[in-house]
């Protein structure tokens, strides 16, 4: 006679309450860490598949891009700051991290439609693992800064750790908005095209090719750009590279971190509310 264990009947599927969504998403990440590890491996290994230079592209890309901007800047303005290429490299790295994280999160459901139709697990895992792989490649890109420390004869200091911190903050600022829009992108792909445009336009609105100090010199401009949550991470990384903690105004720090936190709470809650109706559109 087979032993009969009494198992209560339970509902399978998404059932997170609205307010606890951000916190429960963290426990989901922990309990599915093996899955996340494998998904990360797929994304990071696939990125430079079949290329001779492989991972060096993560370093080459921002370096080459900065060289182009440097010559452009020399042509436009006569006497460039000798640190200008560095500012552009750091700006490109931090901004690209934000942009790629945002695009990866927004498309995290649509890119994984076939897996979603096969098995149920909390779909927020797809979003976080694409953030994870983007952060990983960005950290790789930031290694380009190490030889530049020697070129510019800058002392190595603990403040250099502010650079990876700024990268993490840039990624965090993308999570909330991405989670908010991922279900919407299932219903209508216009969302992902719109986001691609916003990332391109944001490149100029954020201090990638200009710096916070340039905005301060113009007086009124600083009061406007301080509302851009990406100004702080980029400035933090630049000042960290030079070896000092940033003198960025405190309310600007609050705007950046506050935006990230608020959007993360709203995004997680709405993601868990709408994921199950959104997957019907896949």
């Amino acid at each position, binding site marked *: 006679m087979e032993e*009969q264990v*009494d*198992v*209560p*009947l*339970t*509902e*399978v*599927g*998404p059932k997170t309450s609205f307010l606890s969504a951000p916190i429960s998403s963290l426990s989901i990440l922990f309990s599915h860490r*093996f*899955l996340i*590890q*494998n*998904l990360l*491996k*797929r994304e990071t*290994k*696939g990125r430079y*598949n*079949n290329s001779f230079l492989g991972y060096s592209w993560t370093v080459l890309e921002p370096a080459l891009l900065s060289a182009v901007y440097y010559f452009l800047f020399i042509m436009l303005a006569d006497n460039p700051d000798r640190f200008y290429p560095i500012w552009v490299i750091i700006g490109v790295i931090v901004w690209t991290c934000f942009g790629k994280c945002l695009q990866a999160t927004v498309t995290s459901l649509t890119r994984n439609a*076939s*897996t*979603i*139709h*096969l*098995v*149920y*697990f909390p779909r927020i895992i797809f979003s976080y693992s694409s953030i994870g792989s983007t952060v990983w490649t960005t950290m790789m890109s930031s290694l380009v800064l190490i030889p530049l420390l020697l070129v510019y004869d800058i002392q190595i200091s603990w403040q250099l750790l502010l650079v990876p911190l700024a990268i993490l903050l840039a990624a965090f600022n993308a999570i909330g908005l991405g989670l908010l829009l991922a279900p919407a992108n299932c*219903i209508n792909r216009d969302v992902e095209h719109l986001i691609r445009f916003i990332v391109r336009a944001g490149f100029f609105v954020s201090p990638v090719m200009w710096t916070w100090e340039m905005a301060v010199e113009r007086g009124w401009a600083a009061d406007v750009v301080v509302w851009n949550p990406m100004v702080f991470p980029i400035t933090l990384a630049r000042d960290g590279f030079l070896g000092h903690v940033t003198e960025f105004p405190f309310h600007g720090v609050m705007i950046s971190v506050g935006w990230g936190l608020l959007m993360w709470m709203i995004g997680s809650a709405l993601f868990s509310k709408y994921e*199950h*109706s959104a*997957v*019907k*559109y896949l």
Partner: protein
Amino acid sequence: MSEQSIIVEDVSLSFPKKKTVLQILKRNSNSSFLALDNVSLSVKRGEVVGIIGRNGCGKSTLLRIIAGIFSPDQGSSRSAGKISLLAGLGTGFTGHLTGRENAFLYGSILGHEQTVMKELMEEIISFSELETFIDEPLRTYSAGMKARLGLAVASALNPEILLIDEVLGVGDPVFKEKSKKKILDMVAEAGTVVIVSHSFGLMTSICDRVIHMSNGKIKFIGEPKEAIASYYASEERRN
């Protein structure tokens, strides 16, 4: 005491139809497709239930409701124990990863823990007959090899409730027999099985009950032979 393993109560589910901007502006009313229409079903522990019906009648959608992939618009679906859906073998397979890495990836997607996957790896390699190929990138595999690896990983599952969606018959004839046998073993081991298939011979031999579905509704539940008769009768009426 809960003798029931799966209880589906009055479930309705409709899929939205994709619309162009012009259609949204015109506001035409027929904007969704009713895939399941007030379906109720209960499956006892240890029972093997088959589902038949023509394509698009809601068979696969019902399995996905039970598996929790879709949430019903109305009604509820409850189940007791770990559920696995066997469908689209090898979903998530990636060309640039090796067979072994893909096995880990697919296994983790299906809900295996890392320790379990490490233990199962030997069995997966021997069942899939891939041997040294297991550490080659998947893009070098033939379609049959991919199917074998997919089935090897999926069949290493040991769920309490097994849902099977048309996965019989992959690979060459020899492997086809082997895979059929493996799936029948899984059916024998699993506590409860719901299977969607078009091979009526198999359905009559393994199922305790068979459901005939049509247009998102359950037409008939009962003896396999009667369900198949109900299917043919409705097909004739259609013609």
